[in-house]
């Protein structure tokens, strides 16, 4: 059952690959985008200028942390925190250092999250963006530490936090240390919350496993992008248990909205504006007296 924390993303990738094999075999990857949700094919230029949103079904595809910052924060306003943190290999886990190194080369990131300070339409905040291209944004010690530090700094500076989540869950190559990052981050969020400060989470594709079961679910306001996958357990594992195919919208943003676990679904094109408006609504929380 614990494997569910991880399988979910893997299974989604399998689905993705099954769906796009045909296209991949005939046409260069960088020319076309084939939507994993509806199989619609778009020219890459068109897809990119649509902020990587499927024109047919409105699926909000995965984007890198740098791309996210570019469309979210004011130009040149991002000042990165803790850029020098890198993971160790505490369990001497076979193949782990190589995997991290390959992910670093492929993404240009040191680990699966960027954190820092920025302004969004002039509103100052602490921001964190996870990147699913880095080992499926699994949470190990570095991700946990960067999030904890980001919340501690935000508490100290009395700033709101905006966190874009994406993750396959805890990083099993770091064993129990990765599990404990769930407790560490949640405790840092509790202190930020007790100081009367705002925390907004934006759930992006895919947000699953231990990240769903910790900081992703703890925002004062929880926003999701349309059609993205959000869940705790793996879809395929659940299907194996109940011996039935689950409906397509199971564990989608819309499913979570319907069941009361998401405040609003906001499209990418409106995200920056929505976040800045929400930050503005909570200005008094930042500038008002300390309620501690």
């Amino acid at each position, binding site marked *: 059952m614990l494997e569910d924390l991880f399988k979910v993303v893997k299974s989604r990738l399998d689905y993705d690959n099954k769906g796009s094999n045909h296209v991949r075999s005939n046409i260069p990857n960088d020319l076309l985008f084939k939507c994993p949700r509806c199989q619609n094919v778009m020219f890459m230029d068109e897809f990119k200028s649509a902020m990587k949103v499927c024109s047919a079904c409105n699926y909000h595809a995965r984007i890198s942390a740098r791309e996210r910052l570019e469309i979210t924060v004011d130009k040149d306003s991002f000042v990165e925190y803790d850029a020098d943190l890198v993971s160790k290999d505490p369990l001497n886990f076979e193949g782990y250092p190589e995997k991290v190194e390959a992910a670093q080369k492929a993404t240009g990131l040191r680990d699966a999250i960027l954190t820092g300070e920025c302004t969004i339409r002039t509103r100052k905040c602490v921001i964190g963006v996870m990147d699913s291209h880095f080992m499926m944004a699994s949470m190990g*010690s570095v991700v946990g530490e960067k999030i904890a530090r980001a919340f501690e700094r935000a508490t100290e500076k009395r700033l709101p936090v905006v966190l874009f989540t994406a993750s396959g869950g805890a990083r099993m190559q770091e064993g129990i240390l990765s599990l404990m990052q769930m407790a560490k981050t949640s405790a840092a969020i509790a202190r930020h919350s007790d100081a009367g400060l705002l925390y907004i989470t934006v759930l992006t594709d895919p947000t699953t496993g231990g990240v769903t079961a910790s900081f992703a*679910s703890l925002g004062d306001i929880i926003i999701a992008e349309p059609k993205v996958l959000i869940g705790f357990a793996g879809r395929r594992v659940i299907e194996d248990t109940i011996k039935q195919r689950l409906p397509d919208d199971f564990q989608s943003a819309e499913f979570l909205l319907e069941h009361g676990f998401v405040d609003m679904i906001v499209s990418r094109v409106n995200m920056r504006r929505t976040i800045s408006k929400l930050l503005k609504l909570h200005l008094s929380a930042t500038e008002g007296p300390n309620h501690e």
Partner: protein
Amino acid sequence: MNELTAWERIELIRHKNRPTINDYIPMIFDEFYEMHGDRCFGDDPAIIGGIGKISGIPVTVIGQVKGRDLEENKRTNFACPHPEGYRKALRLAKQAEKFHRPVICFIDTPGAFCGVAAEERGQGEAIARNLLEFSRLKTPVISVVLGEGGSGGALALGVCDALFMLQNAVYSVISPRGCASILWKDATREKDAAERLHITAEDLVSFGICDGIIPESQGGAHTNPELTAENIADTILESLRIITQKSVANLLEARYNKFRKIGEFEEITNSSDTERL
């Protein structure tokens, strides 16, 4: 000392006569009144909760319920809680906070249940909420891993001031089987994964996560449940004696730091390392 491998311990804690929380409660607590329900949805038999007394001290007891036979396992869902189980746990913990009662959590679960209903009712949110609320609960919390500490479903009862593990208990981010099937596409390598994941009580002590190992009777807890229960009770009492002396502010500060310091990473300052990227 314990010479069993991680895999041998897993086999031992899956022994059909391994004592469960239902065996231990009458042996450890003088009185016990079970409390039911999360006040929102229902009552989850996979988690038992209530008020008991240990050496005359009233405490709140919460734990996952492994069945002792198939019938009981069906009822308790093999100790895999649904969200309402975690919400019941939180309700009872908040009740304990109100009356300044220490909370004693017993962890024994393969993991939180993975199913349609669990997703619909917010399994992730339920666990997350417990992590946050237990981190600031203004009363002492002691957690004891009795057998299996399975991932987030275990951690939801594991944010505490002191964590103890029975000698043969394990605590892991993922089941060895799951790890093997994901990493190596070969579930039969689970024994190998069990060793590599470092899941034993000694491992967790070495990481600074577990605060003490509770001895089991020779051959495992099932050979002498009364003796094992006595060891658990002694450990809880000794820990309570120390923890209850702290002010609430100091208690919460220490609890925060207990988890805050967990994690292994490096801070690169060398510029050649920077360029490598």
